[in-house]
């Protein structure tokens, strides 16, 4: 499943980040942020309008990701 489908409050482990275009700059930045295979992530919260953007914890940091950005991140089943 994708990070954008994760239920709020749950954690999962990143499998990979998909490139939507060739050398997708957004995917590259996500990997820089630490969204790499084996890294645990948690969906902490969601924005007030249309539940977008998503508030995601990875490593020791929180990031705001729009839904279509989070959809690039493939995760395992939530724990």
């Amino acid at each position, binding site marked *: 499943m994708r990070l954008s489908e994760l239920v709020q409050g749950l954690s999962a482990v990143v499998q990979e980040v998909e490139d939507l275009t060739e050398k997708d700059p957004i995917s*590259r930045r996500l990997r820089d942020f630490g969204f790499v295979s084996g890294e645990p992530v948690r969906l902490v919260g969601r924005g007030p309008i249309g539940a977008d953007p998503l508030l995601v914890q990875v490593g*020791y940091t929180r990031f*705001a990701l729009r839904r279509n950005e989070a959809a690039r991140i493939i995760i395992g089943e939530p724990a």
Partner: protein
Amino acid sequence: MSEAALPMRLALVGSPNCGKTALFNQLTGGRQKVANYAGVTVERKEGRFSTPSGRNYLLLDLPGAYSLDAASPDEIITRKVCLGEFPGESVPDLIVCVADATNLRLHLRFVLEVRKLGRPMVLALNMSDAARRRGIRIDVDKLQARLGIPVVETVAVRHGGAAELTRCLEGEVRAVAVAEDSTDLHVQVRELIAEAVSMPRRTAEIDDAIDRIVLHPALGLVLLAAIMFLIFQAVFSWAEPLMEAIEIGIAHLGTWVGSALTSMPMLQSLVVDGIFAGIGSVLVFLPQILILFLFILALEESGYLPRAAFLLDRLMLGAGLTGRSFIPLLSSFACAIPGIMATRSIQDPRDRLTTILIAPLMTCSARLPVYALLIAAFIPQRTVAGVFNLQGVVLFSLYVAGIVSALAVAWVIKLLRKDKSEHALLMELPSYRVPHVRDIAIGLWERANIFLKRVGGIILSLTIILWFLSTFPAPPAGATEPAINYSFAGQLGHLLHLVFAPLGFNWQICIALVPGLAAREVAVSSLATVYALSGHEEGLQAIVASQWTLAMALSLLAWYVFAPMCLSTLATVRRETNSWRQVWIMAAYLFALAYVASLLTYQIARVVGS
């Protein structure tokens, strides 16, 4: 001998939110120079300091970067300067890489990337006090041994918090020999953390608690609205008296200097109505700019600004903007100049440009005198729908017209842009921090400097040109009409009348529009001058009410919603985008919108009115 030697060149690098700029301020104090890198609008900050033993250093604060491999203009500069490949920048003798000790999972990857450059470097573990408070234990010796570079702990916001770093700089730091290691950097970071860092909890409990309120879908928005309301109250209640004091003070000073020149009336007029009026129109913006930036810097330092962007991103995205556009646009309701200067916090250059282009559509406070004059003259004091004051309703709809057209323009820019690639949000929400007085003071000082040096010069020269246009040629002997009618500005006004007649503007309005270019509110006093009422603006309302038609007044109101009247804003756009092209695009589209809106308003109002 070393005293006479050239200062050692240091480059400060680090990921955003690592406290790099606070460390820069701590080391250099106020001794810093702000400029742009050659050919780009990325800010270049350099400062000097010396260590107790008397060695001198030149410290360059490079733009924050998450990666040296990425495509943002900031990161390209950071990479090139570190390698000595940026034209006009000499290669740094030593790289000081800063990492937030509480955020090592993210920042160590960047440290490893910088280390791969093979340049001499030192790692500063910043905010080591916050790390200790959170029970994070870092084995500095082990980290140092594993990385092969000196590692020091710093607390950028505490006096003397960089002592360990300066001691380290005085020693010898050699380039690291990095063994070819193809292991993924993330894997290396995990190993380093497993060996040298013990972390009781991934996030600070206090951050989680604050975020539960600040980012709450309902409470968060209420809090945001309250903060914005407070800022606006402050801008209007604090800045207004200061602005008035500046205007009166400069005017008095001008008259006083001018009184020494009574024997030379032309020179006196140049000094009083040209130079001092120009200085006044520059300085009068300062209170609003400083108060707005006081809040913006405090919100930024505390970590709230990205939270506000988080809350509003979806809303702004609908118009092709980003959550980060919100604060600059809101500031533009006070004055577009600080609004445009505040767009620097928008990372995506395309989003930043769109925000700059629509900022003048937010109804700034300088339009209020014009609105007030026309509304008081033409709109009756009447209650509509039981509770609303009709004059208030008209004023409110003028504000709404500005906002709606800003959203429409942003949407059109999105359509016209050929680049269809996705705009990213990808925003870190940093830990909350108590803003540090020194860092805010230095930030305010920088903004004031940029405004006075770069924008002030343009505004001052334009005011003097406008004085020249409204003064020469002098009226012929026996002239009966106000002097301005015979001047270049007057002739220009009569010429403009040909263009503006379809909008219902009479020649008096057209003449007043010329000096009104300096600042919108000047148009009101110019109208008084044209109607030979110099100094009696109260009488103006009566003249306007009796001589103008309602259609004319509505047309002029519509004009002022869009008009690119304020040359100061255009000067700021020039400075912030480093491009005359953007200035022309902005002026042209605003002019076109204003013309069409006024034309429609006038013609429709005439038909309906008859």
